[in-house]
Each structure stands twice: as C-alpha cells, then as structure tokens.
C-alpha cells in the first residue's frame, strides 16, 4: 500500500471574482521511501497539493489517504494529530520562532506530542546532531545563517520521526551552494527511510529527486522516474 494515495483530489476556491480550480482530479500514489520532486509553472497548484497532502487543508472533493488513514474523515484534532506524528514541514521562509533558540524550536512539535522535558531535550539535541548543528543549539534564529536556519527547521521537521517530509521551495531563499547542502541532507534522510516530497521551480533542484511529477493547471501532466544527482556525502555532512 502506498504511503500517499489520492483519488480524484480536487480543490476549488470560490472567490467573489469567480471560481478557481486550483487542483483538478489528481490521482497520485507516493510509495514509502520515494523522493518526489513536484514541479510546474507558477499557479499550477503545487502548493495547493502540498497543503492537502500535509493535512493543512481539506479537499473540495476526492479521496486522500495517508499511511492507510482516510484524511477527509478527520476533524481538526485528527488532522493536527497526523501533522504532529506523520508529517514534517520545511518551508521556504524557515518559519522558526524568533524568540526561541534552535533547541527550543526543535522541541516544539514534541510539546504537542506530550513528550516530557527531559526526553524532548535529548531528542532535540539528537535531531540537531543529524543536521550538523549541535554547536548552534543555543543560538536564536537571528544569529544563524539562512542555511543554518533551514537545518534547524529540518531538525524540527524530523524530530517526531514522521513518515513524510514535505518541503515547499526549501531552497528558494538560499544560495546554490547552501541549497546543495540542504538537498544532500534530504537525500540522506530519504536513504534512511523517510519519504520526501519537495516542491520546486528549479530544474537543478528537481534533478536531486528519484521521481518527478509535473503539474499544470491543477493536473498532473508528467510522472517519471529518474536517476537522481547525488550530493557527495561529505558536502551534505558539512
């Protein structure tokens, strides 16, 4: 059974200016362990798709199941639970809380998982280790570079051991060298078993994924397997 299964997934915005069909009948399976790049022109529905897959939004119609759970049947608390346990988000703008240090930012998802302080601390330190930022644990976001901030965000995304990592333009605010490091990190996490879905405009970025899905006008127009460009391990670990 696929980790993600969408059938006839549809998202329509009803605006005063008229109806916008942001997503139109998307049937897509994402297998456990996939590294999927979602590409397509601006306004093609990539972010809309990610929001639905990430349980932040509800489809207008159609079916979506994540790891066997039928998502459209869940209430707000059920969705929150799925986001907390099964999904890790990485955003273009990092979205770290400015008044908390790196460690506290990484701890945040575990607070809502009801994990006690001591274990939170331990696991957050471990997650920061995985992204190579132990020495910055006590720094606030303002005191970190963009690449470092994104690493903290990734640590936060994976700290609850989610089955799915969702990243919408995670390298959009970074220079190409830093972007490469972040992609290397995703590849490493993917090798360790985490399913990764990554939205990007950038073809270079898309080449790092093993599978490429292209959207146009809210529909899937291409779905292909490819040999990913691998980031050398040393570089990712740096």
């Amino acid at each position, binding site marked *: 059974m696929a980790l993600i299964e969408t059938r006839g997934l549809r998202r329509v915005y009803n605006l005063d200016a008229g109806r916008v069909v942001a997503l139109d009948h998307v049937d897509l399976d994402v297998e456990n362990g996939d590294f999927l790049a979602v590409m397509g022109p601006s306004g093609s529905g990539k972010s809309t798709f990610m929001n639905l897959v990430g349980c932040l*939004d509800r489809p207008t119609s159609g079916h979506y199941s994540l790891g066997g759970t039928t998502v459209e049947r869940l209430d707000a608390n059920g969705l*929150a639970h799925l986001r*907390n346990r099964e999904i890790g988000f990485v955003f273009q703008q990092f979205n770290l809380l400015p*008044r908390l240090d790196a460690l506290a930012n990484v701890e945040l998802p575990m607070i809502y998982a009801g994990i006690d302080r001591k274990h939170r601390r331990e696991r957050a330190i471990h997650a920061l280790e995985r992204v190579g930022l132990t020495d910055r644990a006590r720094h606030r976001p303002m005191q970190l570079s963009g690449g470092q901030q994104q690493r903290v965000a990734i640590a*936060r995304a994976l700290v609850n051991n989610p089955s799915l990592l969702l990243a919408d333009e995670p390298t959009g605010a970074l220079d190409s060298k830093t972007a490469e490091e972040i992609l290397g990190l995703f590849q490493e996490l993917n090798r360790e078993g985490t399913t990764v879905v990554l939205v990007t405009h950038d073809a270079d970025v898309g080449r790092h994924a093993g599978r490429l899905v292209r959207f146009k006008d809210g529909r899937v127009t291409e779905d292909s397997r490819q040999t990913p460009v691998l980031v050398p391990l040393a570089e990712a670990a740096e």
Partner: protein
Amino acid sequence: MRFIEAIRSALGAIMTNTLRSLLTMLGIVIGVAAVIAMVAIGAGARNLVDSQIRSLGANLAIVTPGNVTQGGARLGAGAASSLTDDDAQAMRREVDGVVAAAPFVQGLTQVVSGGSNWATRIYGIDLDWFDAREWDVASGRGFDAEEIRRGDIVVILGETVARNLFGEEDPIDRTVRVRNVPFRVIGVMAPKGQSAFGQDQDDVIFVPLDAGRRRVIGRNYARDGSVGSIFVKFANEEDIEPGIALMTDLLRQRHRITGDQENDFSIRNLTEIANTATASANTLSLLLAAVAAVSLLVGGIGIMNIMLVSVTERTREIGLRLAVGARPRDILSQFLIEATTLSTIGGMIGVGLGVGAAYFVASLAGWPSLVSMNAVLVAVGFSAMVGIFFGFYPAQRAARLDPIEALRRD
C-alpha cells in the same frame, strides 16, 4: 502541553515585550493596589474609631441632663443639672440588666504640685465609675466606699497628669493642690491613649463625687446631690434597648414629667453609636469595591486589546504551531494562559504596592495596618478571572485561524 510549561512559555512571551506587558498590566496594578490600600487603610481607621468608641466601655449608655434636639446636645450649659445621685441609684436598683450606674461631675482645673502646675480635666465620681468604664488603676489603689461616702479629699491621677507633675517620681501619697485644696494622691490610672476625637484620655484626675461637687466644681451643681451625667452599664448588649425605655419611664416619673411634656434629660446608647460608625465604614468598603470593579474592568479591556494585537502580530507563529501539530484548543489555552498570567502578575504587583502603601499610611497615622489576607486573595483571584474573561475572545480568534492563511501572513 502541561500547565507549568504553558505558564513558562507564557512568561517567555510576556518577557519578550517587557515594557508593553508592564504598561498593559498597569490598569490592573493600579486598580488592585488602590483597593488593597484603601481597604486596609479603611479597616485600620475603622478599627481605630471602633476601639476608641468602645474604649468608653462596652454596653454603655449615657444619661445627660437637658434635651437633645436633633443631634445637638446641650451639655454642661451652666444651668443646674436635672440629674441626681438618687436617679443613678434608682436606675441601678430598678432597671433590669444594669450592672453599674455611675453619676459624675466634671470640669476643668489647675493641679499644682510644688513648683509644677498642670491644667487638666477633673471628674468627681463614685464607686461605679471604674466598673462602667472598664478602667483600672495601675498603681496605688482606687477609692473605697468610705472615701466616696464622706467625700474625702483624695485624688487618682491620669497617667499624663502624673507624668507631668511628678516625672519619674512616685506620686502615691504626695499632695497636689486643686483650687488650693490639698488632695492626697492615692492612685494612678492605667494609660488609655487618645480618644476617637484626638483627646488625651489620660489627661484627667479623679476625685470622690462629693469632694468634686463641694470643693472644686460646685458652682454648676448648686442643688444638693445633682450630678453632671450618669454612665449606665448593662450586662448584655440586648439589655440596652429595653433598659433605656425603662430608664426613660423611671426618670420621667421621678422628675414628674407627664403627658406630652418634654424630657429634661436624654439617654444615648454608645454601643449603637459605635455600630453606626462601623456600618458607615462598611458602606465605604462597598464603594471601594465598586471602584475596584471599574478599574479591573478597564484593566481587562487593556489586556484584551493587547492580546488582540499580540494574536495579529503572531499569526505566523500560530500557523507554524498548527502545522507542527497544535490543536485549536492548544492555541486557545496558550493565549488564555498568557492573558491570565499577565493579569495575575499585574494583580500581584498591585497587591505588593497596595500593601506597601497601606503600611506607609498606617505608620504615618499611627494605627495598625490591617491588610486582610482575604482582600489579597480576592484581588489576585479577581485579576486572574479578568485575564480569563478578557483573554477569551482574543484566544478564540487565535484558535480559529486557518493554518495556511496564518502561515502565509507576514
């Protein structure tokens, strides 16, 4: 999220904007401080007035000659008094519940001892006086029955007079001259302090009733056996009202006042006067409670305002929290706890300031400061409730945010 952690995180949020948080609390701080201080000061003042009025003695009524018209007493107007020793004895004998009826005369005089000279108030009293006033000698002794009967020229000094005439020396068995009559000092009263009206109650001397009448203040008591006033002490508070009615009848009969003729005396219930003072102090407390309610309301609106601003400013944070798994109710309680923490800290600062002010005023005025633990608890509890009440709407707004829109906001 556990409660303690929620409070810790709320404190973090409050501290990131210390100045703003303090300004927000100000309404609550001032309201609570004012109430705590005023309640304590009011209680201190009431306690003082109360204890001073009651220091006359419990369950006491006073019979004065002449008629009290509309609150104005014609005391010591110079006319011959209509009250006599016999009236006092009749009341003691015939009215139920009376434990002491103390007739007395009073006046102002000079007391001379050697080179020292002191102007003071003089009372001519009988044996019942000290019982009625619940007041005792501190050194020496009181009058005995014979001294009273004969009207001996012996005197008991108030503490202030003793100090001013004799300093550190022992006045017992010394002689003081009052109107050139040599009185032998037999005792000194225990100190009683200031009266409700700021008079020094220890600036006084006591002589037997007849000695006072004949030798010192005789002019106003031309009629034999007449007295200035009579203190009447009852056994119980419940005895006072019926007792006063009986005394009125008795005195009208004795003074041959009939039909609708006016009384030539008046009787006042001193316990009742004390109760009235207490009651008006209670009214004042109620007024203070109203002021408190208004200031807490204003403080609450301030908190609501700043929480709404905070929710708007932190929309992205809320979106992020929702994305990493916060449920709407987690967001709700986060902001609710923040508002409540804010208002409770405000309340506690207010209590601190209020208690400080109360002690300051009390030390200036020289009365005991009565900060009641109840007032403190109620004030802090109320501030917390203000936080919950006025924080609810902003918190609910936060909890209802759509995660995607919240994340997109900047």
